[in-house]
């Protein structure tokens, strides 16, 4: 028992150590994706009308509807269509959009990079800010700074997103003329223009997600600050800043990345209001579009993407937590 010197986790085995976890997670992710598609299939079955009716609008004649239904394949039973779609998905083909009349893959690939970019920028802004707020609060636990930050972040969350977004536009676009009021993202825009375009959407989204992450960071850091090793580090004469950064953070990283992952997953599907206000061509508005036009293959594809991204984020968070924790790493 005493001489437990052999064995243990060398750094190179750290990554290979999480591979079984990743494999297991991919397995359960497939189950979850299947569940999501079943749920989407079920609840979308409750929706009135179908893609043919919605496409033709009020003015449609019954013959037109019938003809379009036949062309879209909507005259087959819903379950058959679902099973066919599943079969296609199994081979990596998400099918054709009923309304846009092109492969779902193309429709999605025009929007997905935008959404990822918006989420990415928002993460770049909000995560460091949330960490800073959370750490500052934790260090000043119960102090004036802590309470102020607490009230500020809480009220920022509660204020409706559209109010924050519109206020941002009024100040930065209409009054100051610094930033564009709408997001004009396209391939031909320069990086600078793209950044400027994203500034206000990023601001609005950040306000929503910062609070949750900051609160989790505060809790995680505060929890670690009570640990004996922190006192020990202080008693070694380690400056407080160094204690927080080098001693506390590696241990608090697990719960923090988890909160970050959850918040970031919101940035894709939850961005609908921001996408609407800023005319941002992202996935959330595409999904709403798919709902209103009853474009089931597109709707399913969007749901699959949101689910896959969520699961990936959570998995990444877990892997980060494991890599940051030598004890978990060894298991």
């Amino acid at each position, binding site marked *: 028992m005493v001489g437990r010197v052999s064995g243990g986790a060398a750094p190179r085995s750290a990554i290979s150590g999480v591979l079984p976890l990743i494999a297991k997670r991919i397995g359960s992710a497939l189950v979850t994706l299947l569940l999501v598609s079943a749920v989407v299939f079920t609840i979308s079955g409750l929706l009135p*009308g179908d893609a043919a009716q919605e496409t*033709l609008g*009020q003015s*449609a*004649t019954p013959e*037109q509807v019938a003809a379009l239904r036949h062309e879209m394949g909507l005259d087959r039973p819903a379950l058959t269509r679902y099973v066919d779609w599943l079969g296609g998905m199994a081979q990596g083909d998400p099918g054709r959009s009923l309304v846009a009349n092109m492969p779902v893959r193309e429709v999605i690939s025009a929007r997905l990079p935008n959404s990822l970019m918006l989420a990415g920028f928002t993460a770049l802004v909000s995560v460091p800010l949330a960490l800073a707020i959370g750490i500052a609060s934790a260090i000043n636990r119960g102090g004036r700074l802590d309470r102020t930050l607490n009230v500020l972040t809480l009220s920022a969350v509660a204020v409706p997103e559209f109010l924050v977004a519109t206020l941002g536009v009024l100040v930065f*676009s209409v009054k100051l003329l610094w930033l564009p*009021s709408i997001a004009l993202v396209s391939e031909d825009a320069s990086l600078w223009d793209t950044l400027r375009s994203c500034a206000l959407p990023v601001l609005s989204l950040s306000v929503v997600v910062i609070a949750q992450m900051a609160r989790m960071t505060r809790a995680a850091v505060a929890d670690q600050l009570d640990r004996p090793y922190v006192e020990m580090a202080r008693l070694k004469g380690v400056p407080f800043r160094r204690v927080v950064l080098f001693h506390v953070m590696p241990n608090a990283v697990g719960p923090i990345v988890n909160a970050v992952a959850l918040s970031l997953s919101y940035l894709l599907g939850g961005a609908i209001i921001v996408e609407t206000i800023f005319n941002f061509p992202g996935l959330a508005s595409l999904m709403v579009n798919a709902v209103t036009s009853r474009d089931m293959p597109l709707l399913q594809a969007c749901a699959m993407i949101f689910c896959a991204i969520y699961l990936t984020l959570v998995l990444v968070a877990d892997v980060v937590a494991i890599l940051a924790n030598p004890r978990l790493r060894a298991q």
Partner: protein
Amino acid sequence: MDFTRRTLIGSGLAAAGAITLPGLSGPARAVPRRGGSIRVAMQSSSTADTLDPAKGAMATDYVRHFCLYSGLTRMEGDLRPRPFLAQSIESADRITWHVDLRRGVRFADGRELTSADVVHSLQRHLDPKLGSKVASIAKQFADVRTDGRHGVIIRLTGANADLPAILSQSHFLIVPAGEDKPTGNGSGPFRLADFRPGVRTVVTRNTEYWRNGEPYLDRIEIIAIPDEIGRVNALLAGDVQLIIAVQPLSTRRIERSAQHGILTTPSPLYTDLVMRQTELPTGNRDFVAAVKHLIDRPLIKRALFRGYATIGNDQPIPPFHPYFNPAVPQTVLDIDRAKWHVARSGLKGVRLPIYCSPAAAGSVDMASVLQEYGAQAGLEFAVNRMPADGYWSTHWMKHPMSFGNTNPRPTADLVFSQFFRSDAEWNESGWKNPRFDMLLTEARAEADEARRKELYGEMQRLVHDQCGVAIPVFINMLDGHDRRLKGMTAIPLGGLMGYRFAEYAWWDA
């Protein structure tokens, strides 16, 4: 003028569209100049955005189609159709029409536009597989055939003096023969540079446009900002130069800016309360009369539309229309009379939901107004706001009380025959009146303008007195624009000059 006297009948609202912006109609009306690139913000766009004029469903589609394609006729601000791609369009009996096409017009791919293209463009609507939005109108095309390289003969199923006006709609724009799925290859003022459904459309000036010197703008980018406040902000921030559908509440903001202006288009657009005649209690005549007297029209005009509306009288022809019948008495808010009707109907205390939706502009607030006054007359209304999604297919006309919304139609005949005739598909209230139907058929074929006005006048009275539809106000269409954008006038068929601003607007910078 190539129109014969006969063809012009029935095609116009006289001085209706002559309302222009102060900034544009001043004495120093400059000569249009070429150049400039603008961005236009529409209300909505989606993956259903299309390049096929026949499938145009939204304002964004119409604007795009008018940029890319030309039609046989064009409606001007006076709501009279003018020949456009057609050099002339005439008929002796208003059944068989002869079209003579302009020569030397070319599609974007360089091919000449001929009668075959016109026949294709008109006949394709009859194919149910296409899913044309005007399939029901196109049903009256009994036969469309070529008459030489530049002549087309259209035979209708019945006499219709309004054909030139009908053909001015975007759905009847001319696409090349052989193209089942048009791709933007048209003879319009602009050519397609970029088209991404649900994101944006970019068009650039067609340097070989068949109308000399037109259009003026070099480039137009069409996007959609669904949020009205966002749209106004984008205009004020200078990110877009033209926006459609400004809310009356926002006009103050735009007018306060020295660089921006509002284009007001009084129009026959209305949001109406539908009371189904086929079921009770809404089928009760006294109930309908009571509700009509419970509508505070001035309040709706003032509070909901900040004055940007014309008070309506429960029939679809607005006061500024040449066929308007001023003899029909105006219904006003009269709670006592409403109470009397309610008492007579025996429906006091009845509870009834009103279905409304953002899909029908202003209907949610109108429903709230009606609820307030209904309570005073002993009618308990519950406001049921439905999401825009699915409203038209699941709620509109499906409940005793719901709201509808009717866009401007190019002719009085269209609005009456589509919404009020007994067998009309969208006979919103399910109102059946043989006399009305007879008058309608008669008016359509009638060549004499005075007689027509008389017939339409009686139809207005019938609808006002008996139909289960309440039309509180006609809503003005408001567009916001950068003041440097000139040449904009009102065409009462829709916002942005009846969606054809691209042919007229120019940039003064």
